[in-house]
């Protein structure tokens, strides 16, 4: 199979590439060192339509396909993985609102989110429930047209900058994952606060925070979908989200490869550029090959989604392979830089730290394997 991009997809790729290389790449290192949230850049990205890419134009989005989204994510991640995760989560938050939101919820939340007037967070994980998300403890009790939420969410991307949080809580404990519901929580609702801001190894320009609910009053019209549908809603969003993380991984990996080849051609040892040594050349060949494979898996999953075909397995495969791949590639890129790769003077040090999280969030590699194995084993022979 050859993957042929349409003229528009190529134009989107070129435009986002130019934007990312000019407006983001030169300052990404500073954002990382100083843990600066790229506020201004995010509003430029909003103007371009990057924050609600797959939302139809009547709801303020760019009305594009998943393939275009993947291409754009790759380009943004190439320049700055932190910026790409902020973009990825905002796009991820739009999807359940579009699919399950009422018209009023769409007008109030989806339109400004897709336009990037404010940004959103996706709050599923808890201190005691990550991979086992169904085991969450945050509770929601309906009382006089308000749901009263109590509990803590953990690891929430953009927590301290978002205005809207798609949050899950247990409405019926006995029903296990069928007893989880999804809510649209707004910053400033009584009883809702941002807890600790985590000090992370990478993605340092993106904030990851705790969310605290203490008798937080959420109006009942902010229930997303029906009671008990929360788990289904979040899992459906994550299928698409995995294509986003796979794309992010491909983008970071491409940045690693480009940095490594540039360096290998310049650095000399034993009287020649290190790019002349077979040991280095083979590393470069393996990196390039793995990136290509991951890119194709990712675009394939995106294409299936665009055609309305089942894509859960392919999205998991792409996410698993691409995230493991970028860690191997970042390792080799740093190795090629020698001691200089270990210094903050070269961007590869940042790539290496940023790449690490891709095998963890939006489902660890182990969880992806569980998803894939279940789907492979359940097909009839």
């Amino acid at each position: 199979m050859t993957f042929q991009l349409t003229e528009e997809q190529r134009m989107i790729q070129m435009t986002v590439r130019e934007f990312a290389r000019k407006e983001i790449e030169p300052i990404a290192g500073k954002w990382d060192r100083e843990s600066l949230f790229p506020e201004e850049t995010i509003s430029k990205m909003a103007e371009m339509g990057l924050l609600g890419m797959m939302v139809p134009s009547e709801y303020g989005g760019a009305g594009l396909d998943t393939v275009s989204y993947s291409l754009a994510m790759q380009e943004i991640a190439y320049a700055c993985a932190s910026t790409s995760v902020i973009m990825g989560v905002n796009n991820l938050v739009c999807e359940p609102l579009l699919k399950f939101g009422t018209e009023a919820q769409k007008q109030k939340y989806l339109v400004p989110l897709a336009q990037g007037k404010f940004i959103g967070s996706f709050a599923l994980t808890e201190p005691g429930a990550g991979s086992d998300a169904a085991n969450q403890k945050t509770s929601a009790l309906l009382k006089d047209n308000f749901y009263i939420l109590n509990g803590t969410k953990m690891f929430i991307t953009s927590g301290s900058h978002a205005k809207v949080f798609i949050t899950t809580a247990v409405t019926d404990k006995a029903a296990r994952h069928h007893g989880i519901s999804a809510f649209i929580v707004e910053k400033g609702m009584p009883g809702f606060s941002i807890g600790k801001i985590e000090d992370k190894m990478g993605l340092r320009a993106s904030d990851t925070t705790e969310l605290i609910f203490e008798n937080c009053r959420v109006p009942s019209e902010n229930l997303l979908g029906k009671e008990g549908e929360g788990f289904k809603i979040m899992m459906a969003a994550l299928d698409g989200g995995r294509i986003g993380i796979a794309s992010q991984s491909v983008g970071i990996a491409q940045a690693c490869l480009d940095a490594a080849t540039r360096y290998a051609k310049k650095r000399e040892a034993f009287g020649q550029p290190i790019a002349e040594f077979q040991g280095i050349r083979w590393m470069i060949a393996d990196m390039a090959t793995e990136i290509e494979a991951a890119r194709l898996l990712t675009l394939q999953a995106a294409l299936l989604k665009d055609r309305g075909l089942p894509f859960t397995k392919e999205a998991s495969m792409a996410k698993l392979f691409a995230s493991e791949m970028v860690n191997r590639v970042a390792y080799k890129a740093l190795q090629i830089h020698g001691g200089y790769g270990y210094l903050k003077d070269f961007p590869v040090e940042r790539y290496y730290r940023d790449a690490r999280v891709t095998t963890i969030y939006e489902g660890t590699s182990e969880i992806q394997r569980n998803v894939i194995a279940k789907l492979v084993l359940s097909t009839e022979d």
Partner: protein
Amino acid sequence: MNIIVCIKQVPDTTTKVRVGKDGKHIDPGGVKFIVNTYDDFAVEEAIRLKERFGGEVTVISMGPERVKEALRMCLAMGADKAIQLWDPAFEDSDPYTTALILSKAIQQLPYDIIFCGKQAIDRDTMSVPVYLAELLGLPQATLVVKLEVDPNARKFIAYRDIEGAKEVIEGLLPAVISTQWKLNEPRYPTLPNIMKAKKKELKELNAAALGLDSAQVGEKGSRVKVLSMELPPPRSKGKILKGDPREVCRELVRLLREEAKVI
């Protein structure tokens, strides 16, 4: 206002350029093409004028099939229509014949102002806008860093940076304006506008449609011919002088004088 922008598609500055087999052209294989950097300022200024005074922006480019992509990018930025000028006879046109071809297309259109980038970053001749203004018999302002337009009085005021000073000139519209850095900050096309670009008009005109015969254009009509093209020699390795500072200084001065011949 009817605003026309002439653009050129050029190799990306990050592309590694190779000379083709004939030794007269660059090898287009593997080259990524972009809209000439200075033309982005021209397109941006045109769109701003349209946003302010209303009207229509038409982008024109002479070149083979691939220039359609560059024209679409300008449409995505906000231009309304595009025209591609191409005919096998146009191959190897010099700046004069290029301007001639552009002028024939422009003469078929209504226009109040014509923008060009101040130069194309491939050949760097800076001459098409100048020829174009002459062929159309229009006033011109080149290397413009700030522009004021009064469509009612049919006047423009152009600011130019000249050696050690600023020059302000006033002229009548229609006019040809060539754009320089600092004039504005070109926008990035928004994603929805990229999708809309496909639906905008992109017309093709050949030599016959422009009323040109093949002797006037291409290599035949050109006044300048490329005889050969070669890459600059690779930079030789630097020299490191070692030893007693006094000796090193003396040696350095000698080398600068006798070898590098710079002092």
